[in-house]
């Protein structure tokens, strides 16, 4: 069946809704990488067997991840007319009981994390129902209460391997609206007005990039999704693709229509096999419904997406190295200009956006630029997903409006240090970012404020450090990572980072002197100022910020 009209899409939506609320108990098992890592798949298989043998009346699906990694495996139980209940830390041995209770319209109380009465999928909303008085409400769980889910609106609630469920929550309606009733220019205008900025870290306005690509000369152009997420501790994009791949495809489809581009690419690292698998499934399903390919939605517009896998080099997240890698060359950055929008992959104008940037597009079209820009702060509109990891109590995927303070994220949502330890600092932006001390935690998380304190947004990793963490050791870890990932093209990055690592090793071995400290600082500044690409330019940030905010820890390392 191909979707060719509003009526087709509407009947697909109804079909999808029946899958989400089938009128009989439905059990969803969290099977993203995080869930699988703690036994989600074994749990799913166990349940599948029990249901096949004894309870054919229960609907069992794989879902993505709702973001509370600490509580995985998370299972959602939906009883018709009643609240959706999230169960946490479910073991395979619990399977039998969960299923038999679900048949009776009940859930195991002691496994319950919270219940959801209704849910705003942004592109649509769902009412589940009431009941389960003894179970806390979703909004009563601090980890969830302080979040605002726009990008993660479907994550953990729908089956990522079934396009109908995505359409059931109002998915592909924004694309339909854009393609059938909006001029391409109007779509770009809407994205520009929304104030959406690149979520890969640099924060360049997405609408303006689209406009430049559209105006670039040349008939054949590319749009590319950068899914080469490589920061240590960051896995937002992985989760977005594993839990809701169609949101990305729809964003790219709308972008392609706006820019008049017919070829799309997703550059994804090979270390994300599950995300690749789910994307391939999603692409096949979208093609079979006529949402990708020739004559999309009977509009005469053609667009298709191919997947290009990277071989695991961190530097390939840099735009020009990424382009080289797709072309089959060594992933080494080149000098800019020309930018990709002018001369990109195979010399054609190319628009490159991060996974999360694309994911924001459908909601902007669905709800309008004004609605989108009312979320977040001025100049920093919308929400941002962070992976809150390290020595924090509530490890997980967190989505908050831009401008939210670090305090809110780390203490209100994250519940402070793990095992009651005192939080000392947080590293934002991975190896490119810096360490912010706890006294600056009232800093709002937006592009400019983070730059002001010496770090950056990056793609959204937040690594929390507690009192037991040695900051010089943290700096050494990140420099060792950056040096190992340096492509070796320019001297400050290739040689400079190597010598920074040697000096840090010397300091940590207790053999450093004041001269070493000064040299480290001088060298850091040169690497920052003279490197060819973003990798080298930002790599010294962890050293410079830890030297600025935790000078005493370096002094303690000096030879007496």
């Amino acid at each position, binding site marked *: 069946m191909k979707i060719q009209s509003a009526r087709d899409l509407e009947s697909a939506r109804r079909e999808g809704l029946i899958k989400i609320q089938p009128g009989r108990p439905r059990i969803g098992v969290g099977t993203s990488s995080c869930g699988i890592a703690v036994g989600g798949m074994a749990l799913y298989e166990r349940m599948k067997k029990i249901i096949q043998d004894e309870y054919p009346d229960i609907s069992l699906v794989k879902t993505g991840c709702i973001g509370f990694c600490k509580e995985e495996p998370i299972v959602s139980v939906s009883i018709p007319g009643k609240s959706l209940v999230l169960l946490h830390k479910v073991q395979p041995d619990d399977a039998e009981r969960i299923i038999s209770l679900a048949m009776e319209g009940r859930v195991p109380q002691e496994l319950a994390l919270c219940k959801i009465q209704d849910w705003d999928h942004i592109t649509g909303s769902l009412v589940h129902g009431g009941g389960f008085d003894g179970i806390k409400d979703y909004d009563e769980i601090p980890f969830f209460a302080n979040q605002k889910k726009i990008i993660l609106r479907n994550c953990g609630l729908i089956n990522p391997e079934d396009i109908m469920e995505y359409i059931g929550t109002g998915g592909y309606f924004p694309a339909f609206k854009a393609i059938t009733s909006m001029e391409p220019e109007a779509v770009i205008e809407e994205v520009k007005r929304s104030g959406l900025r690149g979520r890969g870290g640099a924060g360049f306005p997405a609408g303006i990039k689209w406009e430049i690509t559209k105006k670039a000369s040349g008939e054949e152009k590319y749009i590319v999704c950068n899914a080469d997420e490589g920061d240590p501790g960051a896995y937002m994009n992985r989760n977005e693709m594993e839990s809701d791949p169609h949101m990305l495809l729809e964003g790219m489809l709308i972008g392609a229509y706006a820019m008049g581009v017919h070829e799309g690419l997703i550059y994804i690292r090979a270390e994300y096999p599950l995300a690749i698998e789910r994307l391939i499934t999603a692409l096949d399903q979208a093609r079979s419904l006529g949402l990708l390919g020739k004559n999309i939605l009977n509009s005469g517009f053609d667009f298709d997406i191919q997947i290009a896998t990277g071989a695991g080099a961190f530097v390939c997240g840099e735009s020009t190295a990424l382009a080289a890698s797709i072309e089959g060359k060594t992933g080494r950055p080149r000098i800019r200009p020309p930018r990709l929008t002018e001369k990109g992959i195979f010399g054609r104008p190319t628009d490159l956006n991060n996974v999360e940037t694309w994911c924001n597009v459908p909601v902007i079209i669905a709800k309008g630029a004004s609605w989108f820009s009312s979320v977040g702060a001025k100049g920093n509109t919308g929400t941002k997903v962070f992976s809150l990891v390290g020595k924090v109590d509530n490890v997980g995927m967190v989505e908050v409006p831009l401008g939210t303070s670090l305090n809110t994220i780390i203490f209100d949502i994250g519940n402070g240090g793990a095992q009651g330890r005192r939080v000392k600092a947080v590293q934002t932006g991975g190896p490119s970012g810096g360490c912010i001390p706890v006294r600056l935690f009232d800093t709002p998380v937006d592009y400019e404020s983070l730059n002001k304190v010496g770090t950056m947004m990056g793609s959204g990793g937040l690594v929390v450090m507690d009192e037991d963490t040695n900051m010089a050791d943290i700096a050494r870890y990140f420099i060792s990572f950056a040096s190992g990932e340096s492509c070796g093209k*320019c001297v400050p990055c290739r040689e400079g980072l190597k010598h920074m690592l040697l000096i840090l090793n010397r300091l940590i071995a207790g053999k450093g002197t004041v001269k070493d400290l000064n040299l480290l600082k001088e060298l850091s500044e*040169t690497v920052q100022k003279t490197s060819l690409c973003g990798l080298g330019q930002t790599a010294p940030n962890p050293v410079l910020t830890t030297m600025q905010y935790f000078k005493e820890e370096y002094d303690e390392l000096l030879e007496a």
Partner: protein
Amino acid sequence: MPVNGRKRMVTITINKNQYLAEEGEIFLLTAMRLKIDIPHLCYEKALDPYGSCRLCMVEVVTCGKTEMTPACTIKVHNGLEILTDTPEVIKHRNILFELYLAEAPKSEVIKEMAAKYGVTKTRFLKKIVHDDPLLGKCILCGLCVRVCSEIMGTCAINFINRGPFTVVNTPFYEHNPDCAGCAACARVCPTNAIVFEDTEKDRVMRSWSGTTVPMMTCSSCNKPFAPEKLMHEIQSRLDPQINEDIRNMCPECRRRYISRREMKIPIT
């Protein structure tokens, strides 16, 4: 834009002085022409700017703000303002020289160049280079690799490994039959790191895992004069071909042969 087929001249400011320069010219070349000193190692006229040595860093002034940029990547345009000798530029350049002195401790070129800018020693640990086929002189500027692939179309050598472990050599450090022995790599190397020698019969690229290319001997004087593979490569591109009787002669014999023939002196 060219006006009447000629390049438009525009006004640029370098270190607060105004100059006329050709629009679109690479700023590093403009500065060289104007005798404004900017050190550089990886620029080669025959190739596109590559920006790997970072020594030609200058400050571009835009709206009162300065930004460090390599001079080889700046195109001249009207109103361009550049500072080439600010304390900031000098500070970073000196550190880069120190890094080079540690990376290529045996290179006289680097030593002389650094000394010219007042850097005579390095605070960084020098690379140990006792069995380096590039004699401890390579700075990985990439010119040899690029000239081999982009100009000669051979691609006999390339970068191996990455980051601080990057080296240049033939694949798997083996004798590479693709090498034509043209030695363009050695010709463009800014630090004279690449060594080769011509023996009785062969050209041996010592730096490239002993890659050996047989020499062509002159059909007249029987002396070896050029790598065989290179000669065949060049001859295959010529149209019309060189006359059969002089095709395999060394340049010297060929000259003698032609002039004698023209002057009707019997050829011996």
